[in-house]
């Protein structure tokens, strides 16, 4: 499903160069619920961005469902993200001028094969699954932090992706809400068989994962999934 081979990522150049990832090799199988653990600055975000095709690694290869990202052009990577990868961000990254329904619906507009009726049905189903059935017309500033992250989760899953990458999805939430979000992700993983990879440094939330990848100074602690 996800295969990384000797991934290195360096920011800056020459003297100011900073190595964020120092040769990561790993494989994540389909349908797993994986946590990416490690302190701040350990390279979690860099790794997620590379897996999602948001950044190009300085060295190494990334394969998603057998496709080497280096062989894809910008439009093909965009299409891969649109159809196969969902993203959940620490700051939710919802569009403030759109309602919850519209936020979830917006990425589906670019999937021409999805009819308007199917789009609306998917949005309603997803908002129902994340527990926001009655709050679809509210804008992000009318929702709590936990509710916003649920909208972001619904948005990530509405396109029926194979993989959801979540970068510190609970960092801006209280413990209880954060646990609820991870449990929601866990249940969606079990119901839909979607592969989840989420970054966190909270031991309690990391403990909810099937598999934990530990990063320290840009290296994997164990090399392979626990």
């Amino acid at each position: 499903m996800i295969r990384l081979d000797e991934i290195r990522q360096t920011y800056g150049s020459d003297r100011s160069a900073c190595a964020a990832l120092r040769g990561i090799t790993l494989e994540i199988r389909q349908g797993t619920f994986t946590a990416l653990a490690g302190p701040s600055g350990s390279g979690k975000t860099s790794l997620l961005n590379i897996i999602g095709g948001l950044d190009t690694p300085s060295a190494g290869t990334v394969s998603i469902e057998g496709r080497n990202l280096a062989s894809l052009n910008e439009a093909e990577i965009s299409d891969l993200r649109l159809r196969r990868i969902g993203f959940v961000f620490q700051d939710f990254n919802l569009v403030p001028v759109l309602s919850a329904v519209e936020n979830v619906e917006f990425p589906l507009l670019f999937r021409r094969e999805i009819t308007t009726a199917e789009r609306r049905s998917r949005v309603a189903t997803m908002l129902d699954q994340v527990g926001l059935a009655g709050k679809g017309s509210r804008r992000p500033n009318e929702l709590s932090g936990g509710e916003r992250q649920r909208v972001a989760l619904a948005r990530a899953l509405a396109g029926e992706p194979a993989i959801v990458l979540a970068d510190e999805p609970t960092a801006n939430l209280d413990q209880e809400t954060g646990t609820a979000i991870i449990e929601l992700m866990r249940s969606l993983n079990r119901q839909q068989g979607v592969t989840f990879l989420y970054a966190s440094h909270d031991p309690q939330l990391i403990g909810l994962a099937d598999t934990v990848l530990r990063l320290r100074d840009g290296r994997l602690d164990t090399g392979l999934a626990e």
Partner: protein
Amino acid sequence: MILFLRLALRNVFRNRTRTAVALLAIAAGCAALILNTGIVFNIFRELREDAIRGRYGHLQIYRQGYSQHHLEDPEHYLIPPEETQRILSLVRANARVVRATRRREFSGLASIGDRDAPFLGVGVEPEDDAEFSRHTILRAGRPLSGGDSSAVLAGLGLAQKLNGQPGDEISLMTIEGGTLNAVQVRLQGIFEGGFKEYDDWTLKVPLQVVDQLLMDGQTEQIVVLLARTEDTPQVRAELEASFQRQGLNLEIRSWNELALFHNQVVSLFGRELNVIRLIVAVIVILGIGNTIGMSIVERRVELATFRALGMRPRAVASLLMTEALITGLMGAILGVLLGIGLAVVVTKVGISYPTPPGSTRPFLGGVDIVPGAVAAAAILSVGATIIAAVFPICRAIWRPVGSALRRG
């Protein structure tokens, strides 16, 4: 698609103060263009109507070859009386023609008492002259009328040279075929046509008097006045076809071929208008470019999120371009309303112009609302807004997604 447009529309009003400033800049540019073009077109129209209703009419009909050769052999290009009547009948049959009259130009020497001056005579039909002289001001005396067979009108400059006043006896002398001809007439009025050179030399003489002086009864030109200036090309084509059918060997010139001063002014101001358009476009581009750039920089995380969710760079660019288009359209609509409103007010108040070059009098102008110019100003405003958006949009869509998300 509706959601896409809804998002673009809401984004436009996200920062209302900034949007208001952007709309004001576009509207001000658009209104400035409408006003400037309207003022210039008003001057053009005044000049055009001066030329048409003061001197040339809408169309002039001559014998074929007249325009090119009449200075070398004027006698050869005259139209005999019976043919003149046929032509007048054909011309007057056209529904768009208000009036058609005969003219004959000649030159000679005019004397009042001990003062004399050369003049350029224009033989006119007295009963038609008032209709063809609507933009001519009578400074003293009375206009020509059907019963005035021995009265003439002098241009202001010519009257001053002769020290003539209405009621004075005036002698006209011409040399025709080596023979000196003279006639005694009465100065009935003094006119001001608006063009100094015209007023300094011109004497309007009834054709009856011209026939006495030149002794041939022939017509040099038939001048045609139409109800609407816009119909000029169509009527010209119709008359040309009609003359051809009747076997009349004639040529037609329209006012815009004859009014050289008008053409020079239009050419000069036309270029000036293009420069103004360019300046306004640059100001709008610089002003709006900065505003759009700021808006895009502030939304870089959101735009990167769109990319992360799978939107192609082209789709993100389309969204931003749609926002620019909406802003440009709204600014243009505001600008059109503002421009038209100001044009109406300014026209009501009037713009007092000093005497233009070559003219003899100041005039009170206004602002013409020209549909084509209003549309051009609106299109230019929208176009400038879109051009202003291109650079910030390109920067936004080519920024690496991961980097844009990190800097959020």
